[in-house]
């Protein structure tokens, strides 16, 4: 089982290469992968139907209790077969739909990557593993929605979907971690029996809210539904696959999977039923008001997602059965209808229903698929959609809470979905022929195969519901309930209230469809969501976040070196100064200095020269003073037993002064650029930083201690490295690699200097200033290069 999931990732990685090698045959070849996965899972069905479950586990992060654990039961099986089965057809369909697209190989990569991730979601047996795959599906959805990345709307829609589902995913992660904390286990199959522990815990409400947030965002429940219609920017095979049949069902899957753990309480029922009912009605209401085929289907998908959430919320055995049945029926008819919409778009150049009509003769196979699928969507007998609607009505009608209200809402939504089904199947194919942007013709085989297979299956299961019931619906229902269940499905249940409701639905639906020209304008005016909907809130939140980022960046990243320095230095001085003054006993720190007269003189010269550097107005004087400081320090090195340092310092100091003079020579004096107040502020900051450093040195030197390294180097220098100058031995022997690094740094600097000197602006510059023009010839690379001082380190002995 692990191999079945992980092989999807391998296949995804190989896909661009396969596309390159196999060219036009890549779709057929790549479809074999998902097909093999379907075969594998279908072969497991009899075992699962017998009540077995399958689990597999790989160690991942054992210390955190995170394993790459997978678990196959009835619920996972239904999802796994839908994912891999529709995946097979989608790969084939896309290979014709995107034929000739430069990024076709990438498309397979993203699509198969998604398929593998989605399989991971529904098969994961570990909460953290589930989350990881969950987010992987969000990422692949992002890549797929933004597939036409040169379109700004695609990019915005991709980002929106990612942000909405991604933030939901983070909330869900928090909820899942809390579940793990409460139960002490993050293995899903173990959790199923620990529902009482979770429900009794004080953290139950936070857990429920967080998990629901993740599930609702992913499954486009109100008020997060706005991302799904926008996601229709994706190529149509993606919409059919991710945004109808699989990814958006992940939230439903999560709720169904966790309903034995979290379900059954009043909070659960209120929130889940409430969100589901609101989504069902909103989606259905908006669906039939659209004119874009894909948006009609997107809103009807939202409506169905609402129905599924509603059913999971009701939670009775009947509702669980209805949820699985509707899920399967929906995957079949909605997948087919999306693909039909894609074919229409591809073969006629438009997917605006007002631009389509009378295409039956031009696209007969596509039309047949559309008709079958739409009939299933409208719930007409003898299609599988009819059976699904029957059990759905029954579940609402027999719901423990508010059955009358629920049934009314369910029937209303279904009526509007009948209208939507008419819009996508009857309007384009029948009636008067409408001229289309492209002369219409039938889609190629690969694009007929997908919709026709799905639509035919949707019809066939209507006649033989028993097969599906035994191997899929019953095991899945039992998995949702975590208890055995009696599940039967029949096409003809006899004359009863439910059948009358169905009849009413179709009649009303047909009526609204016929009168839609008169009914839709006033209905559109009622759509307040478009003006004050959650999409607006999303936009405000996004703009606000960007504004905040902009504002804080303009403050923190202001582009002035001095303000960065002031921030860093003032913070350091403040924090370190406070810690030093409050935590260090300063008694023994101030000591009588042991100083000789000649040392005092040198120190005095250094201090005077330092002051001079900061005060003089002439550049050359400043450089001279800087040189004096350097020479003074070199003298200190001589006095305190560091002749090597002194030699290097003298040499470098001389070179530095020469370099400065060459460049600065004849430049005007320093101008006064800052105000007196700014100079005082800077002096204060600099002096306090200096004082802090002095204090730190005093504290550290109050208690000198030699490191063990010192004696190691001192005692082994002559014996091990055969050198008598210990400093040199450290540089070229003990720490030779450091010196190599140092030489490298110096070479890079030399290369940089060389490049800067050689680089010329493209045009002959007219305004090179005279002093620099003269200086230009001087510090040539040859001048700079001899300063390869690492060589000097090695030779000083």
């Amino acid at each position, binding site marked *: 089982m692990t191999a079945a999931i992980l092989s999807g990732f391998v296949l995804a990685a190989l896909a661009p290469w396969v596309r390159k090698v196999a060219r036009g045959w890549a779709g057929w070849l790549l479809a074999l992968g998902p097909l093999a996965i379907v075969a594998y899972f279908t072969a497991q069905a009899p075992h699962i139907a017998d009540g077995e479950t399958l689990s597999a586990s790989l160690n991942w992060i054992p210390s955190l209790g995170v394993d790459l654990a997978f678990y196959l039961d009835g619920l996972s099986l239904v999802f796994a077969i839908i994912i891999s089965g529709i995946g097979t057809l989608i790969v084939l369909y896309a290979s014709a739909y995107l034929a000739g697209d430069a990024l076709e190989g990438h498309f397979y990569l993203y699509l198969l990557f998604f398929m593998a991730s989605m399989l991971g979601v529904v098969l994961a047996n570990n909460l953290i593993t589930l989350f990881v795959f969950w987010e992987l599906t969000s990422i692949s959805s992002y890549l797929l929605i933004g597939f036409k990345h040169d379109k700004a709307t695609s990019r915005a829609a991709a980002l929106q979907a990612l942000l909405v589902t991604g933030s939901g995913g983070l909330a869900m992660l928090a909820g899942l971690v809390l579940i793990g904390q409460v139960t002490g286990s993050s293995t899903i199959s173990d959790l199923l029996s620990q529902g009482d522990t979770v429900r009794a815990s004080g953290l139950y409400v936070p857990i429920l809210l967080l998990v629901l947030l993740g599930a609702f965002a992913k499954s486009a429940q109100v008020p997060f539904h706005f991302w799904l219609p926008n996601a229709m920017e994706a190529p149509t095979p993606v919409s059919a696959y991710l945004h109808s049949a699989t990814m958006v069902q992940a939230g439903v899957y999560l709720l169904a999977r966790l309903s034995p753990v979290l379900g059954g309480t009043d909070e659960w029922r209120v929130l889940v039923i409430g969100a589901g009912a609101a989504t069902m009605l909103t989606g259905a209401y908006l669906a039939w008001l659209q004119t874009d085929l894909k948006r009609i289907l997107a809103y009807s998908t939202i409506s169905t997602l609402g129905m599924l959430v509603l059913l999971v919320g009701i939670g009775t055995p009947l509702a669980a059965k209805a949820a699985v049945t509707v899920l399967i029926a929906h995957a079949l008819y909605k997948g087919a209808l999306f693909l039909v919409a894609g074919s229409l778009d591809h073969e006629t150049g438009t997917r605006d229903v007002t631009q389509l009509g009378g295409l039956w003769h031009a696209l007969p196979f596509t039309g047949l698929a559309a008709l079958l699928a739409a009939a299933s969507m409208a719930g007409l007998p003898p299609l599988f959609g009819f059976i699904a609607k029957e059990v759905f009505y029954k579940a609402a009608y027999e719901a423990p809470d508010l059955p009358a209200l629920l049934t009314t809402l369910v029937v209303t939504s279904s009526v509007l979905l009948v209208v939507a089904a008419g819009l996508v199947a009857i309007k384009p194919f029948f009636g008067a022929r409408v001229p289309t942007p492209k002369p219409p013709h039938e889609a190629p085989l690969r694009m007929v195969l997908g919709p026709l297979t799905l639509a035919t299956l949707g019809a066939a299961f209507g006649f033989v519901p028993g097969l599906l019931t035994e191997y899929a619906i019953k095991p899945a229902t039992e998995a949702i309930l975590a208890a055995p269940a009696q599940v039967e499905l029949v096409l003809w249940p006899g004359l009863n209230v439910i059948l009358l409701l169905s009849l009413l639905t179709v009649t009303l639906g047909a009526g609204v469809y016929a009168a839609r020209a008169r009914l839709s304008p006033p209905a559109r005016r009622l759509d307040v969501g478009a003006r004050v909907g959650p999409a607006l809130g999303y936009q405000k939140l996004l703009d606000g976040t960007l504004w905040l980022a902009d504002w804080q960046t303009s403050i923190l990243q202001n582009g*002035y070196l001095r303000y960065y320095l002031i921030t860093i230095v003032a913070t350091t001085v403040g924090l370190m100064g406070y810690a030093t003054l409050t935590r260090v006993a300063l008694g023994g720190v101030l000591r009588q200095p042991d100083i000789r007269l000649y040392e005092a003189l040198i120190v005095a010269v250094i201090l005077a020269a330092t002051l001079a550097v900061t005060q003089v107005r002439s550049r050359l004087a400043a450089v001279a003073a800087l040189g004096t400081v350097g020479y003074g320090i070199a003298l200190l090195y001589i006095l*305190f*037993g560091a002749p090597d340092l002194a030699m290097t310092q003298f040499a470098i100091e001389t070179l530095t002064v020469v370099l400065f003079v060459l460049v600065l020579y004849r430049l005007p004096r320093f101008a006064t650029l800052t105000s007196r107040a700014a100079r005082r502020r800077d002096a204060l900051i*600099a002096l306090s930083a200096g004082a802090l450093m002095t204090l730190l040195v005093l504290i550290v030197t109050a208690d000198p201690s030699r490191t063990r390294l010192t004696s190691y180097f001192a005692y082994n220098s002559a*014996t091990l490295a055969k050198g008598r100058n210990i400093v040199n031995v450290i540089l070229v022997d003990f720490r030779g690699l450091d010196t190599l690094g140092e030489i490298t740094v110096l070479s890079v600097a030399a290369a940089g200097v060389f490049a800067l000197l050689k680089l010329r602006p493209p045009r002959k510059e007219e305004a090179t200033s005279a002093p620099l023009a003269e200086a230009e010839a001087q510090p040539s690379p040859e001048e700079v290069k001899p300063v390869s001082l690492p060589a000097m380190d090695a030779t000083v002995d």
Partner: protein
Amino acid sequence: MEVVLAVVIGALYAAGLYMMLRRSYVKVVIGLALLSYAASLLIFTVNGVTRGRPPLVPEGALRPPEPFADPLPQALILTAIVIGFGVQAFTVVLFKRTYQATETDDLDAIRSTEHHKKPGVPASISGAREG
């Protein structure tokens, strides 16, 4: 003696930071030089200093006679001085090029890569980056 050196180090840090807070490019480069002096001297001082006893092993001996100056900070500083010079050479030459292109020493005047010498003159100066 460490007490006196502590004061020198503090003065060098203060002067270096003060110079780095100036708007003149040249002053910032000088400030950088002062800071590297300060850092070297800091490393030199923190473990205590020893007068006139370089860490050398005399002929015939296997170890330097105690007390001797700590060789470890010296090795570190030697590296630091050389690298410090590399950085300085680079910044000085960078200044030279910048000054050629912009004719100003004021950092606030060269904040943008799109700097123009005179209004109306096309951005040939920034061409140094693109070319």
